[in-house]
């Protein structure tokens, strides 16, 4: 009906104008015989699109412009009952040169004219460009999907309500949940985040939502197995023109392994930094490449300062040549232990034990050294050595004491035994008995004296801890001189005394008195009969000790023969002269107790010089001001 009305409306248009509508129509058009399928008419647009001339078209059927695969379909369509106006849809056509065209076909039946075959007018809309674009889009989409499916990251999108709208299938691999599970429970993702890390999201989300920058979050999440995983998420909000967030796209990557490695590294670093041993890494050229805190502390440098130095700078006496030599030795041995000295920033030297290890890391070779301070060990060793010395000294004393007991105590006892055996018990009036009694008396007296001497010596030795005080040598000497005034005035023709070099020493007054007394008495006792006795007493400073020298011109001692035992107990050197051989041993013991020592110089028949070394108290004005501060 309506169609008829249109026809009526256009019936007034002249015939040739209709012809123009067809020929000049910008859409490709043709008319074909619905029985023979022959082209009956084609317009210019069709000629242009398909590449055939109008004459060529008129020799062809509509199947000739179709690929073989569609020809059967065309035949079915044409033989089917169609509407007058039929939209047959999209088809593939071929140009003359064989390229494919994607066309949307609409046809309209032409009014039947008697004696003429049934015809249809066809309009082809060229869709090729759009179709190709669609195809490319589909391809791109497939490509993107393939990437999403194959990359290790999970890719996701959240909408403006923070509901998950897309998640790539990789989520199954990482978390064990399928995309469908995430779509069903829009907040599942957030609920899987470790409770302690949710704050991170709560803090970051407001910032993410208003920015188009990329954000990065590292957090823990619970997989379906209950296993905790570390993820890193990078995401960016998509903002609309008003700056409102419409979507958040992002990715999440499993960094559990990296986190574990980081944790292990952090743990190693932590241990290295907090170790009490100093660690130092150096390159082949001797440059220090890393140090730990203990190394900085030991050497008194800041870390940056040390990293600007070479091993040579902290090892006194090492030059380039020695370093290279060491390195070569090092390469051969892989690891090396030695003791050396390192110089701190303030110049202080630290004795250390170094354990070197050699490594190749990448292209570089370097050495790792663990450095242990051995100052304390050295001190302990020194203490042990001095302890040993002390024990050896005590042992020597004990040995000597045993010897004295054996000889000097047993001798009078043996005499007593012998004398009592000779005593005539039968005849008490035997004149021999009186002699024996006299000898017995003398022997017991000797025994008593010996025991007293031993007691004195033991008392001095056990008084090793006696406190030392400042003693005026001159004053003690004056006292001794007074007590010996009788003998001195009788024998000593000359007594020269000079304390100008120093007279204050650290000592025990009783010992100093005894030393003066013994040495002066000895000088008198062992004077030469050939000349008058001369005694010189003076002091000299020697290496921080004050040396008291008492020189005489007496008999002297043959040091070559007697030197080794001159200070031994119960040693006597001169026949015919009364003496027990206790004095010199006593002096030695007393001097050593006061932290000094005694020496003797002597030539037989010429005289002796006894040198007694005393400790001296440090004087305040001799101490450098820097130390007093």
């Amino acid at each position, binding site marked *: 009906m309506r169609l008829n009305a249109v026809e009526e409306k256009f019936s007034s248009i002249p015939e040739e104008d209709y012809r123009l509508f067809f020929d000049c129509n910008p859409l490709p058009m043709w008319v074909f015989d619905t029985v023979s399928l022959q082209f009956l008419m084609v317009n210019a647009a069709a000629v242009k699109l398909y590449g055939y001339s109008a004459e060529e078209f008129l020799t062809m059927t509509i199947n000739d412009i179709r690929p073989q695969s569609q020809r059967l379909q065309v035949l079915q369509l044409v033989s089917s009952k169609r509407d007058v106006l039929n939209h047959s849809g999209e088809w593939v056509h071929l140009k003359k040169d064989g390229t494919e065209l994607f066309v949307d076909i609409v046809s309209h039946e032409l009014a039947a004219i008697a004696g003429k075959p049934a015809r249809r007018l066809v309009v082809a809309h060229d869709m090729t460009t759009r179709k190709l674009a669609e195809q490319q889009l589909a391809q791109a989409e497939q490509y993107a999907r393939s990437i999403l499916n194959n990359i290790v990251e999970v890719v996701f999108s959240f909408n403006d309500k923070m509901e998950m709208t897309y998640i790539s299938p990789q989520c199954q691999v990482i978390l064990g949940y399928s995309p469908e599970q995430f779509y069903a429970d829009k907040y599942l993702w957030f609920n899987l985040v470790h409770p302690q890390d949710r704050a991170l999201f709560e803090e970051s989300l407001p910032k993410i939502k208003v920015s188009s920058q990329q954000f990065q979050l590292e957090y823990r999440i619970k997989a379906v197995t209950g296993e905790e995983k570390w993820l890193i998420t990078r995401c960016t909000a998509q903002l609309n023109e008003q700056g409102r967030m419409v979507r958040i796209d992002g990715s999440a990557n499993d960094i559990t392994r990296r986190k574990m490695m980081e944790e292990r590294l952090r743990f190693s670093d932590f241990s290295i930094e907090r170790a009490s041993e100093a660690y130092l890494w150096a390159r082949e050229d001797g440059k220090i490449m890393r140090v730990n805190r203990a190394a900085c502390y030991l050497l008194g440098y800041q870390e940056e300062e040390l990293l600007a130095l070479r091993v040579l700078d902290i090892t006194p006496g090492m030059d380039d040549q020695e370093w290279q030599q060491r390195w070569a030795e090092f390469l051969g041995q892989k690891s090396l232990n030695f003791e050396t000295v390192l110089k701190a920033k303030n110049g202080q030297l630290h004795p250390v034990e170094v354990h070197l290890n050699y490594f190749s890391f990448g292209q570089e070779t370097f050495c790792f050294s663990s450095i242990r301070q051995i100052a304390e060990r050295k001190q302990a060793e020194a203490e042990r050595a001095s302890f040993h010395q002390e024990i050896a000294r005590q042992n020597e004393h004990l040995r000597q004491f045993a010897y004295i007991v054996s000889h000097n105590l047993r001798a009078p006892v043996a*005499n007593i035994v012998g*004398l009592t*055996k*000779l005593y005539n018990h039968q005849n008490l009036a035997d004149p021999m008995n009186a002699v024996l009694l006299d*000898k017995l008396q003398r022997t017991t007296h000797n025994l008593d004296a010996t025991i007293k001497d031993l007691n004195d010596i033991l008392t001095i030795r056990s008084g090793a801890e006696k406190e030392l005080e400042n003693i005026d040598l001159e004053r003690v000497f004056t006292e001794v001189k007074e007590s010996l005034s009788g003998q001195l005035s009788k024998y000593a023709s000359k007594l020269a005394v000079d304390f100008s070099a120093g007279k204050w020493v650290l000592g025990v007054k009783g010992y100093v008195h005894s030393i003066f007394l013994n040495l002066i008495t000895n000088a008198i006792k062992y004077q030469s009969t050939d000349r008058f006795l001369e005694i010189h007493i003076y002091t000299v400073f020697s290496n921080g000790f004050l040396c008291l020298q008492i020189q005489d011109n007496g008999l002297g001692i043959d040091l070559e023969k007697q030197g080794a035992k001159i200070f031994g107990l119960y040693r006597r050197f001169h026949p015919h002269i009364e003496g027990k051989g206790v004095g010199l041993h006593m002096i030695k013991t007393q001097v050593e107790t006061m932290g000094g020592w005694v020496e003797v110089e002597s030539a037989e028949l010429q005289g002796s010089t006894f040198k007694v070394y005393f400790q001296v108290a440090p004087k305040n004005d001799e101490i450098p001001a820097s130390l007093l501060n």
Partner: protein
Amino acid sequence: MTKYQRVFLIDDDEIHNFLCESVIKSQQFAAKVNSFLWAEEALDALNGMVKDAPQDFPEIIFLDINMPGMDGWEFIEEYKKLPLELTGKCLLFVLSSAVDKNDITHARNLSEVNDFFSKPLTTDILQIISEQYSEL
């Protein structure tokens, strides 16, 4: 008991020398006893005899070890240097108060020392000597 012509006592202990002389005399062990407080003096006397009166060389020497000046060991070193025809006929005994094991061992190891006795000298010791060394 065998009578010896001459015995030397070398000991810085005067009382012990007196003791020895008394015991020796009471046992009629020797005709003559010479006591020396210093080993140096005894050595001088021996040297004098070597030179002037070898027939007076003692047959027995009692020697103390621990003495001032020259001690017993040093005396033995010097004694070795004397002519063997004289020292070979002389018996040298160390007579010491020592109960020190090292001293005793050392004395017994010296070929010049015939035996080591602990002080005091008693009749028993003289008995042992005259029995064990009677062939001389």
